[in-house]
């Protein structure tokens, strides 16, 4: 079920000298099946927007529907909403608290009020899904694990609630390249079990590799919603918004600038390699 946001406005500390407007008339439609990317600079309103999605931040003006649920009224079914919208914050490993991994992952399902059987089944499933060995890790303390493992456990804690919409705020921040790759692969796998994944990221390689639609935020406003190829081929727009290109697109664009016949909207390594090899062959630089 989709997310519909219309003319959403938000102001921090309203009616005080510290008032700060964070969102200006944000209108977005996120459809079933979307892997939705949200990009923009620090302070552009991305985090404020996503914290609206599970009512951690309440709607001040505008409308917001998640799975047909209106989030404007004061009283809503928080449990239902928060088990539908799984939220993974930045550095989610800092939320771990329980004595064992198993207990920590069970925290969410327990709060929803599931039966003990259901909980233990979901915990086992979630831990296995994030690529950890359930039997060997279940009774270990989450604080003894490595950074990457802790993040996986934190993710498992959200997955165990079986959210229909998964929201991720910079899920790969602070990991090494390999850890980043592993988490991304994992997120793509999780995508198959939920209908919408929304991801905030500053890493354009990740955004271009995962998302099918990307919202660009700038100073609290939605600058536009693009498909990855459409967005990253627009060099001038990216420069104006001060957004990096994905590494491969950057190479393709530089080649194109120097007169090579390479498509500027390339967003994957394979495409780039094919294009370069094709161009070399055309110029007779290598054998067919």
């Amino acid at each position, binding site marked *: 079920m989709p997310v519909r946001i219309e003319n959403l406005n938000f102001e921090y500390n309203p009616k005080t000298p510290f008032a700060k407007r964070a969102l200006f008339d944000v209108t977005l439609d996120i459809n079933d099946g979307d892997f939705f990317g949200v990009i923009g600079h620090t302070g552009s309103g991305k985090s404020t927007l996503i914290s609206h999605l599970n009512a951690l931040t309440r709607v001040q003006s505008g409308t917001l529907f998640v799975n047909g649920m209106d989030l404007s009224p004061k009283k809503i079914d928080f449990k239902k909403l928060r088990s539908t919208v*799984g939220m993974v*914050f930045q550095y989610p490993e800092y*939320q771990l*608290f329980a004595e064992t991994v198993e207990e920590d992952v069970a925290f*969410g399902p327990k*709060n*929803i009020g599931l039966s003990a059987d259901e909980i233990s089944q979901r915990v086992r499933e979630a831990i296995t899904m994030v690529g950890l060995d359930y039997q060997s890790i279940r009774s270990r303390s989450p604080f003894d694990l490595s950074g990457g493992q802790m993040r996986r456990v934190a993710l498992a*804690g*959200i997955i165990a609630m079986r959210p229909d919409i998964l929201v991720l705020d910079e899920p790969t921040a602070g990991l090494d390249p390999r850890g980043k790759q592993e988490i991304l692969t994992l997120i793509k796998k999780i995508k198959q079990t939920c209908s919408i994944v929304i991801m905030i990221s500053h890493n354009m390689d990740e955004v271009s590799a995962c998302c099918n639609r990307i919202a660009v935020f700038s100073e609290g406003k939605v600058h536009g919603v693009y498909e990855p190829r459409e967005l990253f081929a627009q060099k001038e727009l990216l420069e104006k918004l001060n957004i990096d290109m994905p590494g491969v697109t950057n190479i393709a664009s530089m080649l194109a600038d120097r007169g090579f016949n390479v498509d500027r909207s390339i967003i994957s390594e394979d495409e780039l390699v094919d294009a370069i090899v094709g161009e070399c062959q055309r110029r007779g630089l290598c054998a067919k």
Partner: protein
Amino acid sequence: MREITLGQYYPVRSVIHSLDPRAKLVLMIAYIVMIFFVDTFVGYGLVLLFLLLVIFLSKVPLGKVLKSLKMILFLVIFTVVMSVLFYNGNENDLLWGWGIIRIYSQGLINAGKMALRLIFLVLGPTILTFTTTPVQLTDALESLLKPLSYIKVPVHSLAMVMSIALRLIPTLVEETDKIQNAQKARCADFETGNIFKRAKAMLPVLIPLFVSSFRRADELADAMDSRCYRGAKGRTRMKKMHFRLRDAVSLLIFALFFFVILWLRYNFFPAFFDLSLLTWLV
């Protein structure tokens, strides 16, 4: 949670703001001692005038200063009620009696004085924190306690601990906010249930908070180490405190005022001017 601000520094330029924090700290302590020597309403009136003058000079809005009294409102009311109810006076002083409840006029006067004393006790430090930043205060404390370092009291370390603690309060508040949100996103419920249930519900917030505090302390210690921090030895200050003429003048003015208060109480010069003749001084 985000609304909590510790240290209510009011950033304007004023004579009071620009005084040496050490002078202000000493004045504040002397002021507190002085309050205990006041025992007449005339004395309290003088203190009030003095306070109003200082507040006026400090350019802090009077309303803001009075707002800080809200915290002790309950304490004041409680004290007044208790001291009125339990005052044992003599019977011809009785104002009103019903059963075991007896209210004496002397009891009322005493309660009034007690309330004034409490209020004035709070107002002094309030003005200090409005006009002095927490960092200035810890610096002043360190400087004033320096003599103790000759008897091996780690004054510098204590001051450092204090300023780090003050510095980290906003960070901790922000962190609490974040963790609380993360647990709320996992359907944690902090708002319903009785007090025990709620206290238990805070565990998933407190444990990560402790863990990250220790981690942060570790990192900070490493960072200080790698920048060759080794305590007070040979350390200079970026902002040096200067004891200027205006500090001396303000100390002098206060000393005079303190003397007047003492005179009101002890009637130093009965031959010259006998205060005890003025019976209206209560």
